[in-house]
């Protein structure tokens, strides 16, 4: 586990429209904006919390792809081997970086959830049609109970800065193989990945999906801290200490999932789900056995946070 302390901050909506759109934002309960410096005063005067953001500052942020499922003919199918576009690995790789999303209609809420799940500093450029749904997501995110716990990782990867290393991280994340970026191999981890070594040749890493599968085999499913059953399109981030855990679940599939089953190594007490769009829900069929805790999440449309309590 790393001692990364999370400071939950909501992504900022970059708003280019004029003050006449105030009512639209207020109706969506969006009160915090990033705007061009010359517009900042007028928005402040309208009662908004404003962060001035120049074009140069915006351009300096790392641009992120729109999250979701992308069709890849011959490589993936929507139901069996979905091709997920996700940026959690980027946030894990560069936690202090600043990001910007420029998302098409229907993706704003997912982008916001993804950023918050990883505690990323992100600005959202959205289409006006998404204001309502994004407002709902931001209200949900703001209402989440604050919990700061260390991030849980099963494997370490030494980041050589290469694009291949990045793509390996991407595929590890997509398989919910919890990883930590390190400067040098650490005995704290059963698997330490250093691309370019005899054990992890660069040529092998050029097939990141197969490479991630190899890492999974080395770790073994039994030793994985986290397993997800019932979907291949939910990516998780786990924070935990000895007695508590917070699990972030981001659903990239665009369809509500019912009864997602989660297995966490470790013994945790009763938990609850905070589900975007549904509020607080009890976990279903939670059991503890063989050193692991299992439960079902009643439903998840885009994002859910699971809080598990002190062990019984």
């Amino acid at each position: 586990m790393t001692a990364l302390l999370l400071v939950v901050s909501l992504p900022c909506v970059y708003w280019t429209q004029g003050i006449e759109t105030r009512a639209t934002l207020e109706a969506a309960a969006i009160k915090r904006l990033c705007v061009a410096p010359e517009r900042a005063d007028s928005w402040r005067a309208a009662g908004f919390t404003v962060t001035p953001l120049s074009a140069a500052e915006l351009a300096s942020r790392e641009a992120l792809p729109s999250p979701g499922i992308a069709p890849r003919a011959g490589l993936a199918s929507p139901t069996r081997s979905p091709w997920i576009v996700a940026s959690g690995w980027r946030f894990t790789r560069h936690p202090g970086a600043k990001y910007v999303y420029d998302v098409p209609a229907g993706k704003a809420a997912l982008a916001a959830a993804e950023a918050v799940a990883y505690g990323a500093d992100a600005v959202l450029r959205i289409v006006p049609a998404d204001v309502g749904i994004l407002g709902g997501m931001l209200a949900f995110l703001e209402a989440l109970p604050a919990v700061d716990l260390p991030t849980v990782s099963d494997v370490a990867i030494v980041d050589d800065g290469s694009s291949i290393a990045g793509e390996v991280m991407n595929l590890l994340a997509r398989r919910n193989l919890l990883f930590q970026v390190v400067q040098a191999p650490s005995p704290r981890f059963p698997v330490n990945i250093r691309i370019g070594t005899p054990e992890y040749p660069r040529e092998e890493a050029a097939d990141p999906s197969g490479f991630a599968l190899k890492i999974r085999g080395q770790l073994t499913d039994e030793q994985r801290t986290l397993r997800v059953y019932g979907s291949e399109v939910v990516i998780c981030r786990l924070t935990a200490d000895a007695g508590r855990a917070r699990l972030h679940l981001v659903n990239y599939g665009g369809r509500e999932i019912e009864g997602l089953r989660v297995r966490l190594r470790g013994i945790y007490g009763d938990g609850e789900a905070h589900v975007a769009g549904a509020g607080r829900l009890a976990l279903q069929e939670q059991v503890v056995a063989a050193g692991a805790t299992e439960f079902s999440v009643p439903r998840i449309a885009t994002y859910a946070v699971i809080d598990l309590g002190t062990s019984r």
Partner: protein
Amino acid sequence: MHRRSFVRLLAAAGWAKAAASLDVAAKQENQAPLPGTSRNLPGIPPLRVVSTYAPAAAPGMPGPYPGRVVSVKSDKCVDTATGRANDEVVREMMARGMRTLTGAGTTPDAWRRFFEPSDVVGIKVNCGGYPFCVSAYEIVADVVRQLTGIGVPVSRIYVYERFQSQLDEVDYAPHLPQGVQIVAAERANRNVDNGGYDPATYLEADLFGEEDTRSNMMRLVSRSLTKIINIPNMKDHGATGVTGCLKNIAYGSFSNVARTHQRGKSHTYSVVGTLAAVEPLRSRTVLQIMDGLRGVWHGGPFARTTRYVFYPRQILFGTDPVAIDRLLLDVIEEQRRAHGAISIWDRSPGSLKIDDTRARDADPNVNIIIREPGHVEYASTLGLGVYDRGRIKVQDITV
């Protein structure tokens, strides 16, 4: 409530009770695999079964009639020009088949050998071959008629499939009495509805490196039904060779099974039988009625065209799914041979066009996956029935 409803609606009340049993399930996770599973055989992946359910003293499969099949044929049961079934003839075939199988003097007595009024009975239909080859309305309706005739209330009769979308297409409701439950575990084949499955009863296997390694039994099967009647069709299947009793009951009662066959390779050889043998499915499936009014000799399990439809005009009765499927292998093979198509046992690379369903549909000499008709014999090694054709006794009846 509309009588077509998801199993998930039925499941809520069972949660508290089920949760208490889940600890037990977990304790059993590391027990030995089912007798006969090929954990150590080359090419067969490790399969781990997790279930809290003990087998019945006499499990439904292979049941009281291992190695025995009653075949009832009638040239009049289907009009091959229109594909329409003759309800009256089908009823007579059903009655004769059940009486012959059981030796009972009357048809109700034959049904009483398997069911009593207190049972909650599931009827596992097959809707995958819509519109030309699904479990026949006439057969399903007669099963319901016989069950109610011996006192099983309609409210305790469930016609089930995995996908509601398929049940909606086939639409059994107009053919059945009001009150019969028609239920599915998932709205459609989209891998988002898990609520209809039992998280404590599953097969765990990593077949192709997929992340979701579990296939869970339908809650309806594990937590509600006391008996199951299996009504498969006589169909070819691109991954298993044929889809009959074993495939219908196994892949139709568990989640996440399409993962077993992809990119030209099929793990159905071991998974079909292993799933069928998971308790309580094995113990509760007490009667096999193979609907051979119509059949599909290529392109199965689908039947989107009549091009590969044929008319065996028979119904097979038994309790041994292996014995019936052993006969089915010959039926499909014979049809394919008659049409000059490659054998269901063909494994040659030259016949294989991986994932090219269009080529498969256009040409019966194309496989998209190497088929595994050996799954039937494998199931026999799990104790599910008799595979040796010389030991299978078939009683032929003509109506």
